[in-house]
């Protein structure tokens, strides 16, 4: 590498790192508990336990639980129903009205039923009035710094800058190591030299993981605009071809349980997990949207919405998901590390801590740079590098 090229890479590494380090430290600190989000939520959950029932007890019909929910909250609107494929629980989401839900997506509350007995296990307040749990607080900081879409886009940009910092770090690593063996930590000279070596060693060892988590972080932060894009293009085009009679009144709706069963029968390789009611801004005015996912390890990450006519109950179509939403779906597990059991989560946490060390040591190296500028250091390295060629 020429002297001026190395100098440029050094400046790129320095400035991209300075721009993103503080934000990245916030993301690493809030990300650590998020790796164990499921465990923390279970721990904090105050729901009643599931009834113990004989093996093979069938789940209740969604229709019955929808009726029970309407009886509990007369006049309210059902938004969607989620049936857990792994646990005997069915959750009904309700809001005052579709108008209110459109105005504030968090103005919904949920009722959790025991899928075998129909007993109410837990009810929440509307999400916008409910106190925030610790995992949700961490998630909100991690996702958007309480700044909504602007925060998501800002963090997407920061994650992208982080990726550039890693790439420029790779470029300057080589010249640094001309005279050193891999993994050398010179702990016997100055503190700064020791932390420089640790920064380089931990940085290069965790390189691939940090790149994957950084790049999938960028994609995750773009989920709001990506979903909006899909709805305004593919979904709208599909619904436009179906524009017709006025929408069905609640009393005219076909059975949601039948909608689920119709989809299940038509798509035996998929698992139907939830039913979104007609009228949702995330659905269709005329259809139930039944969300399905695959049964294989990878396809269980890939969701496909299926339209069922909300009056006749007839199967209508599977809505094709575009490549960018498939990429988003695969990015989620690779970002959160929640796809390989508890040992993988522990590894994720330790790699997160290693990243905190790289960020912190980088900051320390910059703060303790003293009189010798980083450009001079680059020049010195370039000279030793040239001598090697």
């Amino acid at each position, binding site marked *: 590498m020429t002297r001026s090229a190395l100098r440029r890479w050094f400046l790129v590494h320095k400035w991209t790192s300075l721009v993103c380090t503080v934000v990245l430290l916030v993301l690493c600190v809030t990300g650590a508990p998020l790796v164990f989000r499921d465990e923390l939520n279970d721990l904090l959950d105050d729901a009643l336990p599931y009834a113990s029932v004989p093996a093979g007890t069938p789940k209740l019909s969604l229709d019955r639980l929808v009726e029970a929910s309407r009886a509990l909250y007369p006049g309210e609107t059902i938004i969607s129903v989620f049936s857990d494929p792994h646990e005997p629980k069915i959750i009904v989401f309700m809001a005052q009205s579709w108008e209110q839900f459109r105005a504030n997506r968090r103005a919904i509350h949920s009722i959790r039923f025991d899928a075998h007995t129909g007993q109410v296990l837990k009810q929440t307040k509307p999400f916008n009035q409910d106190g925030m749990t610790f995992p949700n607080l961490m998630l909100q900081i991690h996702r958007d710094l309480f700044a909504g879409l602007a925060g998501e886009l800002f963090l997407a940009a920061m994650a992208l800058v982080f990726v550039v910092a890693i790439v420029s770090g790779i470029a300057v690593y080589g010249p640094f190591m001309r005279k050193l063996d891999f993994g050398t930590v010179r702990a016997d000279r100055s503190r700064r030299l020791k932390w420089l070596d640790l920064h380089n060693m931990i940085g290069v060892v965790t390189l691939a993981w940090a790149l994957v988590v950084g790049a999938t972080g960028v994609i995750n932060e773009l989920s709001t605009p990506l979903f909006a894009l899909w709805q305004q293009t593919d979904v709208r085009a599909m619904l436009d071809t179906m524009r017709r009679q006025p929408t069905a009144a609640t009393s005219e709706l076909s059975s949601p349980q039948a909608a689920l069963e119709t989809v299940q029968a038509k798509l035996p390789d998929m698992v139907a997990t939830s039913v979104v009611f007609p009228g949702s801004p995330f659905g269709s005015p005329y259809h139930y949207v039944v969300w399905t996912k695959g049964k294989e390890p990878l396809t269980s990450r890939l969701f496909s919405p299926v339209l069922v006519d909300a009056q006749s109950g007839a199967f209508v179509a599977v809505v094709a998901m575009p490549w960018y939403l498939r990429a988003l779906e695969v990015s989620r597990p690779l970002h959160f590390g929640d796809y390989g059991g508890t040992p993988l989560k522990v590894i994720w946490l330790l790699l997160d801590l290693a990243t905190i060390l790289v960020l912190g040591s980088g900051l320390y190296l910059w703060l303790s740079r003293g009189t010798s500028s980083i450009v001079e250091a680059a020049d010195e390295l370039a000279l030793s590098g040239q001598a*090697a060629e």
Partner: protein
Amino acid sequence: MNALRSNAAIWRWPAVLAAVTVAGLFSALLGQTGAWLVLSWLLLAVPLMVIAWCWLSRLREL
């Protein structure tokens, strides 16, 4: 010790570790069961062990 290293010498271990990491990430994602999960844990533990070894072996020398 002071001889200048070639690019191949410098990048040998970082490249191996990157390959091990990627293999570990995808073994859990595409496998998701039994042996594939254990393989992913073992592979992804390698970078952590390398960090611990490099760091601790220097401390012991002091």
